[in-house]
């Protein structure tokens, strides 16, 4: 679907308000600080990225899976579904939506097992606990929470189109692309249209490479304040990364994270 973003379910239902987002997260933020919450989201975005790369998925599929996960937790507490289950479920769903082809259940589970064991042993000391039936069950709940909005617009395409217009060198595009990938670790994909995220990333890449883009941005006639707001979200992430060592801290964070109760409450 390469339709019109302004008529899409993404635009109409899934561009959220930052105040609402804070409100929705309140139950989790009674247990976690905002920064801890973000670190947990970063961890599971990393997990999806790693899982996707191991499954040799395109970045678009990975980005859509990440967006699914973030949309789910924008409406539900971390307690509702263990993100370690929701992450592979998001990948499973997004690979179907993005026409990548169905990942076989056994391959998905075995890849999860090896990724947990080989890449995230610093976070998990036990084996990946979920099986195919868990993923399939979880998929229906995810689809329901997404209100069946499955087509996600990503910043990659507008990024490439803008860069053609701007006529930048390859290195600006490359850096901007990486910043878009990083932006998946922030809330911007829940808050801003993808073309604005692309513009913010181009702007940041231009600044780093000292490419003069003032005139070009001025001619865009876009709201630069919003571009700057996105930039702030991403810069905050880079600021956080300066002092944050996921390998050391994440295990404690995962301990602290609200968790599902899988046994029915006795009455």
């Amino acid at each position: 679907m390469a339709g019109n973003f302004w008529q899409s379910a993404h635009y109409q239902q899934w561009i959220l308000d930052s105040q609402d987002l804070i409100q929705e997260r309140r139950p989790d933020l009674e247990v976690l600080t905002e920064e801890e919450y973000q670190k947990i989201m970063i961890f599971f975005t990393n997990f999806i990225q790693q899982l996707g790369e191991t499954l040799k998925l395109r970045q678009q599929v990975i980005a859509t899976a990440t967006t699914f996960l973030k949309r789910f937790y924008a409406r539900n507490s971390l307690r509702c579904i263990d993100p370690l289950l929701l992450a592979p479920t998001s990948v499973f769903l997004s690979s179907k939506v993005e026409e990548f082809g169905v990942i076989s259940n056994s391959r998905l589970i075995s890849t999860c097992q090896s990724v947990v064991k080989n890449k995230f042993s610093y976070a998990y000391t036990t084996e990946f606990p979920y099986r195919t039936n868990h993923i399939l069950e979880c998929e229906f709940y995810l689809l329901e929470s997404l209100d069946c909005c499955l087509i996600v617009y990503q910043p990659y395409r507008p990024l490439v189109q803008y860069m053609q217009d701007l006529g930048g060198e390859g290195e600006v595009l490359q850096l901007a692309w990486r910043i878009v990938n990083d932006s998946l670790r922030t809330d911007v994909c829940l808050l801003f249209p993808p073309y604005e995220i692309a513009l913010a990333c181009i702007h940041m890449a231009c600044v780093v490479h000292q490419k003069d883009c003032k005139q070009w941005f001025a001619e865009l006639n876009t709201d630069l304040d919003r571009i700057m707001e996105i930039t702030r979200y991403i810069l905050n992430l880079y600021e956080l990364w300066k002092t944050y060592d996921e390998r050391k801290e994440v295990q404690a964070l995962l301990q602290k994270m609200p968790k599902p109760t899988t046994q029915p409450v006795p009455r």
Partner: protein
Amino acid sequence: MDSEWKEKRNNERAKVEELFCYEGCKVGRGTYGHVYKAKRKDSSDIKEYALKQIEGTGLSMSACREIALLRELKHPNVINLQRVFLSHADRKVWLLFDYAEHDLWHIIKFHRAAKANKKTVQVTKGMVKSLLYQILDGIRYLHSNWVLHRDLKPANILVMGEGTERGRVKIADMGFARLFNSPLKPLADLDPVVVTFWYRAPELLLGARHYTKAIDIWAIGCIFAELLTSEPIFHCRQEDIKTSNPYHHDQLDRIFNVMGFPQEKDWVDIKKMPEHGTLMKDFKKNNYSSSSLVKYMDRHKIKPDGKAFMLLQKLLTMDPTKRITSELAMQDPYFLEDPLPTQDVFAGGPIPYPKREFLSDEEQDDKSDNKKKVFMEQSWTNQQRAAATKGGGGGEPASKRVRLGHHQSSIGGQQNFSHMTQRNHPNQQQHPGHVQQGGMMNYTNTQQSSNFNQRY
């Protein structure tokens, strides 16, 4: 998963069988699943709906694509998804649409039966033109969103019955399952009996590897011809269609018998088709030297100097690169000539076609339906005669009868962002045709975009 949360969700979830009454009301059965005519149990509205239970359990890739795309597509001539029901207990997926009482397969069948009985069907002069115009408009919209239909045939073109959308075309059953594969492999995956080759473009039969917009246009040409004559223009016996080979000798032979063998100058790239060698080996162009579309249509009393014929010729152009686009076809002089196309294809006149009949609910009838279909297609001419007396017959199985419909929708409901520059909308920029409204038919502008949220 948290059990308390799960329980809460399960209690809140609307269940299709609690909201809708559809038992014993099956109107369709096919590879896609079952379709029921349904009404709300609480009579909060008295509208009729079509409920489609998707074949199989869980979320197959085709179900996933169908939901993902239908959720985004909004056009008066494209079927509109009202709601999705996920039945967790049996892992079934249900889709809710507005009900469309008619489809072109049934409409054409009715005309053929009448013709055989030497009776005339009372319909307005402009009906065929209105149908074609709306089919083109729906396809133009799909194509502008890079959605290819891939399976256009009369049974997939629905027409709304009495109601607010009376006489409006709804394109249904896009070939979502075939989006990701090569165009031909899926033929083998589908129930072979249900596949029909009559609407397949010549390049597909010669092994083209990808679906294109032009392939949909060819099918529209076939449907247009069938509307004009009540006969499938490229009707062909279909015995050995279980083969996954795209090359189909008899179907090509039929096309050449109507159209003549393509001249080299008319289709330069035919040499590059994967099955060109087989074509040259199997066919002698001299066998078709007396055939032409002009002669074929003339036999059916469609004059070659008329505007209808001239547009048909542009749609049924052998070379896919020279075939007309939906956008250009909509601007054809045919649509400017009296009678002008109307939003209600029946133009306010009576609808002479019968309503859909319910199918028996037993599983066995899909099997026998399929057998029946093979028989029907093989003995088309007999069947035609039979149709005269029995009122039955035709090239589609009862199982493929049904389709779905919908309610108000309009591309005119689109949000106005004209104050922003084009540059801000890479997606819009890509498809400048998207926003354009066809010049002739003024659909009522509804606030579709904003309503969608609430309705969904």
